[in-house]
């Protein structure tokens, strides 16, 4: 039993953190200077080249045969750097295509030659939201109980709308009734959903940690009333609570990753728990961080708020928190 990353896993972390902190430091995000997404989308080919999309695919599908633990650790860094959900959609789409034996498509996605964007259904169910979908080759529609990989032509009436998360573009669209795609649903979709929940949890962990770190740095630097604000318990105790939530979310995500990799009986239980704890960590930490930054937390030009918004976005992918809780309650221990 060892929940510390192995040397191999550490390598993945170092590589990802090294690249992303250099190419996509959080303060590159400047809402007022237009959508911040350009830089991260431009980085996608390099991510594909580094094997990030194919990381967890088996070697027979052209992948690198790493396990869910490495993917989880990678996506924690992806979440910290607020990389476009296109990367996440690509990983899931490649896995879906591989599962259904679509080798060519798997390879195209894994190498970054075919880009994949995310779609989620609107609450009512009639319309859909497309995320960072401009120019994508495929669209991955994630519903609460099925996952479908579609051609962009399956969507019509596409119309750009303002996005809560300003680091992505958002479109509303209608799904044509006859549209067909690669789909798994019901019990067949369970392994894919475990992967979806695991990677979402991982990205949320990264977001929760990022705002914790921004908060600690701010509390250590800013002076008010003649002392560092981190000396006030009204500041230091919320930071401590952020640390507690991060530790819980990271530990559970690591444990869930191991169980998913090892195909444990409790995989659904553990990934659902991971997602629930990680969403709370990301949302609660981001809200606390905004408060702690004061005016700087409320101004678009400081990066804290992006993490709050990304957490809300990720909550909508594959069943939001209330459904996750209902699922977890229904499970046997």
């Amino acid at each position: 039993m060892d929940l510390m990353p192995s040397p191999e896993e550490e390598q993945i972390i170092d590589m990802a953190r090294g690249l992303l902190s250099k190419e996509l430091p959080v303060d590159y995000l400047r809402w007022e200077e237009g959508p911040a997404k350009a830089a991260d989308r431009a980085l996608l080919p390099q991510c594909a080249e580094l094997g990030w999309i194919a990381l967890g695919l088996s070697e027979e599908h052209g992948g690198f045969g790493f396990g869910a633990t490495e993917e989880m650790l990678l996506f924690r860094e992806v979440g910290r750097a607020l990389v476009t959900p296109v990367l996440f959609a690509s990983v899931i789409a490649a896995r879906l295509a591989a599962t259904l034996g679509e080798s060519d498509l798997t390879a195209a996605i894994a190498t970054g030659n075919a880009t994949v964007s995310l779609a989620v259904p609107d609450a009512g169910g009639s319309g859909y939201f497309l995320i960072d979908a401009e120019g994508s080759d495929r669209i991955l529609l994630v519903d609460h109980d099925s996952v479908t990989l579609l051609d962009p032509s399956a969507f019509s009436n596409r119309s750009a709308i303002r996005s809560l998360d300003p680091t992505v573009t958002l479109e509303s669209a209608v799904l044509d009734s006859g549209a067909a795609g690669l789909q798994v649903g019901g019990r067949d979709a369970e392994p894919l959903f475990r992967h979806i929940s695991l990677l979402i949890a991982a990205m949320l962990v990264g977001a929760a940690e990022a705002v914790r770190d921004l908060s600690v740095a701010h509390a250590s630097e800013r002076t008010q009333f003649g002392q560092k604000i981190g000396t006030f318990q009204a500041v230091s105790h919320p930071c401590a609570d952020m640390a507690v939530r991060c530790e819980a979310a990271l530990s559970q995500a690591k444990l869930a990753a191991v169980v998913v990799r090892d195909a444990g009986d409790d995989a659904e239980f553990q990934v659902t728990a991971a997602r629930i704890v990680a969403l709370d960590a990301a949302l609660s930490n981001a809200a606390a961080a905004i408060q702690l930054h004061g005016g700087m937390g409320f101004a678009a030009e400081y990066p804290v708020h992006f993490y709050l918004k990304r957490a809300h976005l990720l909550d909508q992918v594959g069943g939001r928190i209330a459904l996750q809780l209902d699922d977890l309650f229904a499970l046997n221990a």
Partner: protein
Amino acid sequence: MNLDFTPEDDLFRQEVRAWLADNVPREVRPADGPDMKAFDLAWQKRQYDGGWAGIAWPQEYGGRGFSTIQQLIWYQEYARAGAPYVGVNFVGLLHGGPTLIANGSEEQKTSHLPRILKGEEVWCQGFSEPGSGSDLASLRTRGEIDGDHLVVNGQKIWTSFGQFADFQELLVRTDPDAPKHKGISWVICDMRSPGIRVRPIKTIAGHPEYCEVFYDDVRIPLANVVGGLNNGWRVAMSTLGFERGTGFMAEQVRLATDLEALIATVKARVDLARDTDIQRRLARLRAEVAALQAMTYSSISLNERRGAPGAEASILRLYHGLLTQRLGRMSMEILGAGSLELTDPEEGWTGPYLYSFSRTIGGGTAEIQRNIIAERVLGLPRSR
């Protein structure tokens, strides 16, 4: 204890209601830009022409000098009629103007007060600085005396509507050697003075409500100092009561209206018909929003007896801020994926949710409010 209004108050309410019904603008308030400014000023002018400008201001300065109860009635009817947010007139009506009334010279009063009431002059606030937020008295923008002028250098931040303002209530340090509360002056700054640069700052809700203001050898006549040189801290504190007073009532009514709209939405949703999770959390909010109104009534009653607002205004402000944020968060959950579409800060749910984060930051953070409550309401020793 009673909730009765006098026959005179009832008559007053009828009068208010009738006037608002005839005069509240039908158009939607523009969310931003010069159109918004023009809209806000036109609405202020209309209130002035109707005899409703400056309801809390003394009559001698063109105000109406209403009692607190009458102000309550005005704001209740104002909200009920869906009348617009005070907008760019906020600082002039609720900060700058009242400060001039309390501390200004005759000359200062006559030059500005009528124009504020008529919607001819927009004011902004220049208090906070990048290094001075909760610790306002540590401000460092300098005002050096040069003949009969102050020469101002420095920077302010979080200046609401700074890009639209004609004048600014500006705090500058005029005696760097005095203790920090004793070397500050409150001056009227003409925003068109040479050497002023204004940079809008977008909020997390997506609108350029705030500005940074930079001062580079800005010359302000010494005649624009209000309440005496180096007396600015006391002058600034005299406006706090206004901000925490009745001007806040409109937002409370808005909170109740929003909550009831959300409850109606949930009641109409078949998928939430048995969702006791959502329903009970909304019910709890409903109880607490009712309590907020009751607290406001209590506070008004106490102020009527005592003649002035007290530190318990911090309780109202904190409670209101936290409730608004919880409502926002709940609306996001109820909306589901629909919450991904951003709306304006005054429209729909997503924009107001984001905007709600400012409720425990601007005008004194939640932490500062808790300090005030602990020290001034409960009498606990000063926090450190």
